[in-house]
């Protein structure tokens, strides 16, 4: 598949989700149980992007030793828990990552 076709299909599926939200889905279609489970979608899917990007090296092997990303992610998580701020989380993580690779 060409890059453009890939982009268009991804755009289409994103658009259709949004359109179905306001045009097709009605409040009574979801009971409390489905709503409750759907509220866990971010917690279920985002770690699948987060964890491999932190714990795996470029060849896809698990890397624990000399991995500045782990400590930086832990610091970002702690800052995130206390600040509840998106920006503070991102920047504290980047700052501690750079501090580890450039200064330490």
């Amino acid at each position, binding site marked *: *598949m060409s*890059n*453009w*076709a890939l*982009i*268009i*299909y*991804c*755009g289409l*599926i*994103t*658009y259709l*989700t*949004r*359109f*179905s*939200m*306001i*045009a*097709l*889905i*009605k*409040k009574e279609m*979801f009971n409390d149980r489905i*709503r*409750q*489970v*759907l509220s*866990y*979608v971010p*917690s*279920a*899917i*985002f*770690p*699948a*992007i*987060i*964890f*491999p*990007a*932190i714990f*795996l090296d470029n060849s896809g092997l698990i890397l624990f030793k000399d991995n500045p*990303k782990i400590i*930086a*992610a832990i610091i*970002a*998580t702690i800052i*995130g*828990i206390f*600040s*509840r701020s*998106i*920006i503070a*989380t*991102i920047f504290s*993580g*980047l700052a501690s*990552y750079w501090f580890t*690779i450039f200064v330490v």
Partner: protein
Amino acid sequence: MTNFKVFLKGIIDVSPLMIPVVPFGLIFGVLAIDVGFSPLETIGMSLIVFGGASQIVLLQLFSGGASSLVIISSVGAVNSRHLLYGAVVSEHLSDLKLIWKIIISYFLIDQAYAISNEYLKKNKDQNRYFHLVGAGATCWVIWQSTTFLGIILGAAIPEKLGLSFAVPLTFLALLVNDFRKFINVIVIVVSGLVATLGYNYIPFKAYAIVAGLTGLLVAMIFTKMVKTNE
């Protein structure tokens, strides 16, 4: 209020939420070039997809060599969280003409939805939808311009900085409100472990979908258990 004033109010209300979007857009622009998309394709992606999480997931899986089918279904999985909003927002938008529903759908991103839902709840004016259009258009302008800036900056940013690390950090930041909830933490850890350990073994690089579904299953089991204990 006139249509324009409601539109303007949408712009003003959504502005504080635009602060985190700026680095997100820059990072996207830089990374898209980095993983091998042309500047034109990168701009096209922001115009056609117009969704931060969708676009970053696309890049991440693309750079890992995932097949198109897996990338598209992962983008669908990421977007499924939006279905939840549908139950809430549709009741405010039900008397809208179809053509407006088609237009507004394009602008219905997290930030615009979050801020306009508050307004739509309190306001019953005929032209209240202009608030959503104003908020959405603001997000659109910020997203397109930061993407463009990222494409230009990308050439100037040294690879040594390891800016790709901003991807997991950005998604981590989107979960800040879930870190304090017990079941969410379990779901996060299980999904993360499945994705990391299965990265090399789950065929077609479908680890994101397998991990997501496992996480949801864990959520279903735990929420059920908590309910029965009550």
